[in-house]
């Protein structure tokens, strides 16, 4: 039974896109793990920015620049509060999680030495594998993988065995994009710290569903992307402990990140500007703040509870389909279901579902190592958000049955 106190019908009206039709059918949007939809409050913020105070920040003497700067810094303050970050300059605006991770990886190139070890989990997104491979090639540090079991849980005893005094960095997602597993990051962080290793947690998939208290976690770095939190694409954050951010060299050179420039020498600006070269995505940052306001107005706890109910209902209904196999059955997971039906190619089913107005993701979800682990070419992934309904789950189930009938 759905127990939620949320008024989903009213919430759906906040999202103009949910009213549209696709291929003649009402849109059933189940690709939220890739990009969440945008509520009117956020769209209005974007329109308001460009209609009223579009200008460059931090350097103008004029009113518009001041208003834009205030709004942008207010958004940073909202994010600081939300993630319970000690100092506001520990929040760096980036273009998204991939940028955030690359910034840290690039910084560690000057810290790591040959023979040092980097640990990454087996369920990482490519954006959390490739930068470390590049870092490993650059520095001679060794990349090691924390394995997972069939259900998609990390093997924590193996993780402990991998940790040693040479381990300098540990990277893990808070929630797996392909499987939905919520990883035990408290334990991962504490154990890494015990051997003196720093930890970066990729929060891209988690941030729309869970509230991470970064001080309580004592994490060294944490990342999030606005477009998975009802915000716009192209903006995200990197949280870094002040001590680390001071130690890491700047990632890109340009305007805003300098204190003084002569042709002989440049001194870098203080945090966070040291890592925010050039004109940032000002509107995106402000809209990210508006998205956070919106999610908080719904309530993260209520969101998590309802999404959990949807996940359970969808899991139950999907498993009634003959031959359907779910990949990722971890003890703790978010509302993401990766599956295949019999030997049918995920792409075939995804194509038919699209014809029925149902948006799912098919393929390897930028996590090829996971697909190799299960020895499959890919999966169909349905990912649910708080604006999805039980009826939409039913439409998905019917759609899959139709696809299977056509393809068999």
């Amino acid at each position, binding site marked *: 039974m759905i127990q939620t106190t949320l008024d989903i019908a009213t919430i759906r009206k906040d999202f103009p896109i949910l009213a549209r039709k696709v*291929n003649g059918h009402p849109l059933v949007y189940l690709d939220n793990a890739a990009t969440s939809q945008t509520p009117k409050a956020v769209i209005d913020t974007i329109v308001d920015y460009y209609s009223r105070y579009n200008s460059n920040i931090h350097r103008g003497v004029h009113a518009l620049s001041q208003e834009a700067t205030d709004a942008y810094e207010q958004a940073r303050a909202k994010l600081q509060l939300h993630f319970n970050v000690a100092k506001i300059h520990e929040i760096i605006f980036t273009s998204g999680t991939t940028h955030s991770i690359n910034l840290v990886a690039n910084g560690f190139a000057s810290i790591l030495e040959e023979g040092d070890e980097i640990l990454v989990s087996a369920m990482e997104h490519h954006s959390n594998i490739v930068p470390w491979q590049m870092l490993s090639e650059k520095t001679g540090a060794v990349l090691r993988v924390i394995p997972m079991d069939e259900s998609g849980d990390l093997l924590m005893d193996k993780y402990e065995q991998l940790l040693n005094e040479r381990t300098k960095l540990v990277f893990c997602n808070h929630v797996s994009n392909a499987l939905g597993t919520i990883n035990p990051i408290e334990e991962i962080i504490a154990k890494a710290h015990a051997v003196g290793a720093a930890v970066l947690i990729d929060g891209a998939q988690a941030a729309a569903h869970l509230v991470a208290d970064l001080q309580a976690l004592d994490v060294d770095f944490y990342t999030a992307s606005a477009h998975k939190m009802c915000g716009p694409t192209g903006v995200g954050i990197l949280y870094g402990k002040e001590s680390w951010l001071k130690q890491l060299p700047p990632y890109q050179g340009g305007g805003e990140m300098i204190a003084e420039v002569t042709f002989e020498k440049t001194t870098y600006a203080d945090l966070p500007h040291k890592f925010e070269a050039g004109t940032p995505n000002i509107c995106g940052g402000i809209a990210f703040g508006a998205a956070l306001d919106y999610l908080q107005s719904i309530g993260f706890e209520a969101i998590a509870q309802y999404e959990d109910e949807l996940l359970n209902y969808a899991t139950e209904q999907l498993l009634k389909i003959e031959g359907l196999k779910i990949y990722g059955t971890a003890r703790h997971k978010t509302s993401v279901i990766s599956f295949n039906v019999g030997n*049918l*190619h995920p*792409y*075939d089913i*995804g*194509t*038919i579902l*699209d*014809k029925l107005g149902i948006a799912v993701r*098919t*393929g390897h979800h930028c996590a090829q190592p996971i697909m190799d682990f299960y020895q499959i*070419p*890919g999966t169909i992934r349905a990912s649910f958000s708080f604006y999805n309904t039980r009826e939409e789950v039913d439409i998905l189930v019917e759609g899959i049955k139709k696809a299977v009938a*056509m*393809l068999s």
Partner: protein
Amino acid sequence: MKIQEIQEEIVDEFAMFDDWMQRYEYMIELGKSLPLIDEQYKTEDNIIKGCQSKVWVHAELEGDKLGFTADSDAIITKGIIAILIRAFSGQKPQDIIDADTGFIDEIGLKEHLSPTRANGLVSMIKQLKLYAVAYQTQLN
């Protein structure tokens, strides 16, 4: 039959159906009659790039005409390559190079296929024509 005539024949067949489901079902049906590629040619080199599913194509010269065999791990993709091969197989390389592929639009395939798959379709046509160019050079 000339390529043009085969294409018209395919367009006529698809015109019998009035909704996408029937067209897809027919396409899936056509996939079952695809001349299958010999296992030895199912190599990485013969995979067409740009498709989310795997498509292998092999071409062989039979006299002065080109014969195609193919396979795919996805059923709909198999239907698409089957349609293309039906139009091109047993034709002279130069005729394949010169062939217009507007019939894809006419059978409502392009507009009904997802963007990435449509790209796959474009890649498939390109690959078949590349084979024709290669064998035409050999014939010359």
